[in-house]
């Protein structure tokens, strides 16, 4: 769990955040947690898998389970191209894919500028989001990749329950 973004340390005050876009909204993930950006990839669908799983993608001889961030947000699938990020730091034994609409640039943020989730946030967002940064153009919701890990989602009541619902909606 070294280099986890969820534990900001004073030693490293600024973090480089990779901005991603999903349904017109801006999100950010610590670049230390991103192994690679695979670009436009269509994951192979896994029938009968939980709804939040977009499928599997090949990556360096491994088969990565890929989470659809749109499905997690409860949105319908993106009509256009998708982009898959390979999430997992260097020492992470189980990397996974995260499917988003598109990946933007990298911004340098002060760690202590991260503001906590507001208490009025709905349960789903409360579960997924890890606070937000204020950007000139608006808010950038910070994501903690460990919260999006498929193994964790499978155990969470909110998403684990959604199994078996995704039929017929592929591609």
């Amino acid at each position, binding site marked *: 769990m070294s280099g986890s973004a969820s534990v900001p340390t004073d030693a490293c005050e600024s973090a480089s955040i990779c901005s991603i876009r999903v349904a017109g909204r801006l999100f950010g993930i610590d670049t230390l947690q991103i192994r690679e950006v695979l670009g436009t990839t269509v994951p192979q669908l896994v029938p009968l898998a939980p709804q939040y799983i977009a499928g599997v993608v090949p990556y360096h*001889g491994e*088969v990565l389970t890929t989470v659809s961030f749109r499905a997690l947000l409860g949105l319908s699938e993106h009509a256009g191209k998708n982009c898959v990020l390979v999430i997992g730091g260097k020492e992470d034994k189980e990397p996974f894919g995260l499917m988003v609409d598109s990946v933007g640039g990298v911004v340098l943020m002060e760690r202590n500028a991260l503001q906590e989730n507001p208490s009025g946030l709905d349960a789903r967002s409360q579960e997924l989001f890890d606070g937000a940064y204020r950007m000139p153009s608006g808010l950038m919701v910070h994501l903690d990749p460990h919260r999006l890990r498929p193994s964790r989602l499978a155990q969470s009541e909110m998403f684990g329950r959604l199994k078996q619902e995704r039929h017929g909606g592929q591609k």
Partner: protein
Amino acid sequence: MTRRPDKGEVEQLTKEFLVESQEGLDRMESCLTELELHPDDGELVSEIFRTVHTIKGTTGFLGFTRTQALAHAGENLLGALRDKRLKVNSRLIDGLLKLMDGLRAILTLIAATGTEGARSEDDDSELIAHLAQLKTGDSKLAKVSKSPPKTSAMEQPLPPPLKGALADTKAVEETISVTATSGSGALLSEPSVRVDVEVLNQMMNQVGELVLTRNQILRSAPGAKNFSELARRLDSVTVELRETVMRARMQPVGHLFSKFPRMVRDLGVTCGRRVRLEFEGSETGLDKSLLEAIRDPLTHTVRNAVDHGIEPPSERVRVGKPVEGVVRMRAFHHCGAVIIEVIDDGAGISTEVVLAKAIERGLVTPEEAATMSQRDVLQLLFVAGFSTAKEITCISGRGVGLDVVRNNMERVGGRVELESRVGSGTTVRMRVPLTLAIVPALVVYSGGASFALPQSTLAELVYVPEHEAEQVVERIGTTEVFRLRERLLPLVWLDRLLGLKQIPHVDGVGFYIAVMESEGCRFGLAVNDLKAPEEIVVKPLSEELREIGIYSGATVLGDGTLALILDVAAVGARAGVRPVAEDDAKTDELAKATPSNASQIRLDNSMVIYEIAKHGVAEGENVERMAMPLSAVERIESVPLDQIEYASGRPVLQYCGDLIPLVDEGGVLRELRANAETAASNRLDSEKIARASGREIAHSRGAMATVLICMRPEARGLRRVGMVVRRVLDVSAGTLLDKNAAACPEQLAMVKKRVTMVHDEFSRQAALAPMENLREVA
């Protein structure tokens, strides 16, 4: 020697010591059982001595005093043996085996905890005393070993708790369970493997070659002329590298076999059997992971062979067999797989007993039992919980034997077959793939996605043309079934099962049914299309996806896309398909098929049924059904009419560089030609049977003749004959009817409940000239 190694060093040394000692003890085990057979072999004693001596030396250095003390006692005894001051006898061997077990137990403890253990039960003083007693007692008085040792003033009463010093049944059982469950060494040897440096060098060379090829490919411009050459080189380097890596992972099955002499020896004592174990092909290589996977099935099988297979000595003498039973373990390569056979020369399996038991347990009805073939009966033994043993012994007979063996084997893509002859023994044959990582598979397409089916579970493929779909797919209640050679198969639509979108129907396009067999389930899997068979590289899936339960992995296909590998048994289970043995009665009843052809489609009584036209008879009545033994048919070919040539009025066909005469009994050729001449673009159904097992139906337009290419057994010279037929109807089991010359001179058979004339000249009149012979019939 005074320098104390630091902590990290000790850990490393301990690890090495454990692996080495384990190997040594494995060798010692096989040497000991060997020594019992050849008591005068000094080499064996020296080898055992060396092992124990090495352990003693290393433990002394590492500071494991308990092990050292035990090894020391053993070394003393072995030293006496080596200097011929002692004689080898079964008590001595028992003692040495105890020593080995003791050492092994400590090693396991060290591997698990890092210490030798200091609890009260970790006390070896009894064993050490026993070893000392063996040494002194025997050296003083050689006779002692023969008769039970008498209590003397010098010796203490024989230490009673000494496990198994006398062939105490209970104690032996204990040791059996120890050797069987601990898998002796699985714990220790698993994380490391010994590789020949030569193999490593080779691997490095090939990796170097791979890098060079990659560099060239990277440097070559897109569309470069030498691209195909580079691709070929990459291909050959990859293949070589793969082979080398596989070779590095290969371990001789002898490693596995070496555990058995001890087990069989102890089992023999417990069950009161005299058994000799023989090995063949111990050097056959098998992937390390598979070696582990077949350990349990093999243990089960050998236990069965000794406990159920080999008769007690008195019984063997009574039936005139040598007193000593033989269990033979054979390993060899065959068709890209490793075959391991366990052959015993015991009583064999009585089909009557099996059937009686099956009827008693309600698996089959007495009526069905009467018609079952021997192979089908033996198949019953693989049903869970089935055991014919009269009483449950501690070793086997709980009925969790063969089904476990089968399931374990199928899990690694292998198979188990059983052959038995009453009175002369049983053979269990295990077919193990060479590796788990690369498996041959068929890629199928269903609902817009690709899936891989392991070839080991695939029995056959059937194409169902659109216009036949209505007829071959029937419904029983809500279940769809498919009628395949008079047998009903549950049909599972892959796209519906997985909830995939169904591909809109296209006119004129049928579907494929892959007949799957796994863990006793047999069903048809309906898919939209087949892709080429491929050797796929199995990649594991993440835990969340494995939990779904029907995928065993994923693979990257040649075109770069991913395909999920289906766990066929799980797919069947999810679709509600039950294992065949339980299912048979029901489906057969539903099929209303006669018992004789319901479940036994075998090569020897299978018939090809075809139609020929009888010319000169009015249209509509000119069709006659005939049948021919399948064994006589080599291939069924669709031949364009213009390829059939005539030599002195007789039709001939050039076939595979051979000129074969055609036999046109019903004037089919004339009929075809007439049709072709009247320019009627008659569509003629033609079917093609690639092999007895696989069936593929093809459509062809225009004038095509269906020709059965038949082999004439025993005949020399002109061996092949082509039979021109109107069309091939089916392949089915048939029963020959008793010949009644008065009623009908031809040989008749019941095939699919219809009387059919059999064309059996092929086996009867092979001596006659082929042309005349067939003319007569025509």
